[in-house]
């Protein structure tokens, strides 16, 4: 005779066996090739910048959890992602203390103040970068050439700038393809952009590796394919239309899509699940806004690059997109409601 007491629970009694930290860990994995390429391209400088930003984010998250007497949430890997992404958007010879400040700001003001994972309105890494851009306009626009011969042996002096001091940059500063275009009217060949033989932020230079990371996440169903698709498509279509309109004045759509932070932004930043909409149509709208704003900022504003501001703006609109654009529920149609 059975004597054991039974447990009870509410159905369903099985689950997919995937957890939030699995997704986060996979995003970290997908970012690793980008980090390695960054190391290959910019050497020790880039590695130090990325590590510092990541460390700052993880430490801040842990410290804030302790402060509010909660169980630490660093194990969910979301702070690691924020740190990596922040590091990957900074120039390679960026002073480490500034990167550290960025990490602290990203987690504290970009995420924790809203209630931690799941509640942030903006992508924390971009909040950090926006603050850094406002605070250190020179340091964040001083680019370092890629593939320097001594990149694995020497570290630029600017990296070790004393905290709260202005960095002294080396004489050999490079221009990014976008700034070269904006201020000097030079366009870089698309192949160089795609395979990253260019100057730029540590992680944004090789479009192909970024896209591969994205494909991995999409194949594992851990990322929405609609967002990167919408961003790239809308940017391509708008810049393509402009290019057809006036080939002298506007660069080719391939140049626009492969240069700057567009690929990194489209694949890893705009797809931050928390700060993006949730319905399929909402995702298309959100991605479209990012792509179009990016091109608008790049072409008509004083800034060479606009991915960061477009994503932050789209983040702000995203909750409203979800309220306005809803799935058509099975068995209902929009017309029926009016009738």
């Amino acid at each position, binding site marked *: 005779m059975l004597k054991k007491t039974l447990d009870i629970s509410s159905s369903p009694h099985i689950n997919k066996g995937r*957890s939030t930290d699995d997704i986060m860990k996979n995003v970290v994995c997908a970012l690793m090739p980008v980090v390695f390429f960054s190391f290959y391209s910019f050497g020790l400088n880039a590695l130090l910048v990325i590590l510092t930003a990541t460390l700052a984010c993880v430490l801040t998250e842990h410290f804030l959890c302790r402060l509010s007497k909660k169980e630490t949430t660093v194990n969910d890997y979301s702070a690691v992602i924020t740190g990596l992404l922040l590091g990957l958007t900074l120039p390679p010879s960026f002073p480490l203390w500034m990167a550290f400040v960025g990490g602290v700001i990203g987690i504290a003001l970009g995420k924790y103040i809203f209630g931690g994972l*799941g509640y942030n309105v903006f992508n924390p890494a971009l909040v950090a970068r926006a603050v850094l851009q406002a605070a250190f306009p020179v340091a964040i626009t001083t680019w370092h050439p890629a593939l320097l011969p001594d990149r694995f042996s020497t570290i630029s002096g600017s990296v070790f700038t004393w905290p709260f001091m202005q960095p002294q940059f080396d004489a050999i500063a490079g221009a990014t393809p976008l700034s070269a275009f904006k201020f000097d009217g030079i366009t870089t060949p698309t192949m160089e952009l795609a395979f990253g033989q260019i100057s730029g932020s540590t992680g944004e230079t090789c479009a192909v590796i970024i896209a591969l990371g994205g494909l991995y996440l999409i194949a594992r169903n851990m990322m929405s394919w609609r967002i990167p698709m919408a961003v790239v498509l809308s940017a391509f279509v708008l810049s393509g239309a402009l290019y057809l309109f006036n080939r002298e004045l506007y660069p080719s759509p391939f140049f626009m899509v492969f240069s700057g932070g567009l690929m990194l932004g489209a694949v890893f930043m705009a797809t931050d699940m928390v700060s993006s909409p949730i319905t399929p149509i909402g995702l298309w709208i959100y991605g479209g806004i990012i792509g179009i704003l990016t091109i608008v900022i790049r072409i008509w504003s004083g800034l060479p690059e606009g991915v960061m501001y477009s994503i932050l703006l789209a983040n702000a609109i995203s909750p409203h997109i979800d309220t306005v654009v809803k799935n058509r529920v099975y068995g209902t149609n929009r017309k029926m409601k009016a009738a």
Partner: protein
Amino acid sequence: MGFFNFHKNTFKNGIHPPESKDETNDLPIRQFPFAPVIILPMAQHIGAPSQIVVREGQEVHRGELLAKAGGYVSVPMHAPVSGIIRKIANVPTISGKMSPGIFIETFPFSTQEVLEGNPIDPDTATAEEILQGIQDAGIVGLGGAAFPTHVKLKVPEGKKCETLIINGIECEPYLTTDHRVMLEQESDIFTGIKYLLKATGAKNAIIGIEANKQDAADHLAKHIPKELPVTIKVLPVKYPQGAEKMLITSILRKEVPSKGFPIEVGVVVVNVATAAEIGRLLPHGRGIQERVITITGPGVKKKGNYLIPVGTPLRFVLDQVGVDEEISEVYMGGPMMGVAVSNLDISIVKGTSGILVFTGKDVDRSSKIYPCIKCGACVDACPILLNPSKLGILAKFEAYDQMVSDYNLMDCFECGSCTYVCPSHIPLVQYFRLSKRIVRKREAVKKEEVNA
């Protein structure tokens, strides 16, 4: 939803849980032993409980009427065994509520033959006579909902039933009841369809079967009687395709209006085991005494598909098949929508399609609940295209009115796909179940106030 969705032959979204049917889908249906005491609750279906018409101490023959229908939305109850009525008292049911019930002591040496009743001839009987016959046989939906079948079949005034869909989907993991019924009771199924076509006035019948039961589809296709307008449609495997609305969309590309019934798109859906039961009972005028149940799960020793008398105590069933020492949870139904049993003293009822036993290590209780990261997995899983993420947040804030008015809470049929996929392990469908109950209760209270 995957990256590409080329399956046009199915409804939107849905999930693919492991099927876990391999261990029992090859095992033929076997007769289960008769329990020494049968405990028959009177509330085993949706609607009014049956009203007992026998008294304590009375001897009953198997198939004899024990209780009459308690109203239109109700069915009678027949003796599952020959024996003597020992007691009429309240008995526990799976919901936790008590129900009037009958305790029958089985005659140990009875041959357990079934009484013959008034046969109904499918060729001469009118639709009304068939519907009456279905009610008299005590037939309810055997897929699990246990809704009185004659009510469902009654086509309302002004509506017309074009198509009869026979539901052989069985999308719940582990369960192989309908699969075996389709393989072994083909003639009962087709006889049942004959009655059902006549009762509903439908022109043709379509049997929907998922691709993981191709053998059943082939078997049925081979045996379709010449004059019967039946076709078989094999559909890609996806949960919850067995839900009426999803099945109709998969087969006919039509959507049942929100809050509406299948009849509004000219369809009536009947579970395949229910059809088989109609085809077996009506020609003899008998009532339901037993049903096929899959007993499986990691904690069961003798897994199988058994023909078990209604009212058999669950404890007796589990003693007979043998269960693991580490038994932790027992479910009636499948793992997606089945109900966890809190008490082994409840009985098998007409709606029981499976008994699933999980041991401690099969039940994932450690998983931590993370905040919602709005990954959208639930949105991509919900077959009704709701936004479970948003509904979950609103449920937490007890914003029930907004859930109903802005996010179509009442369209949720609790399939559990959202909870299944949620990486943050948020008990979404559990929230919705609770919210729906609270909303219904509030509405009932409001109505009472208006009437008062």
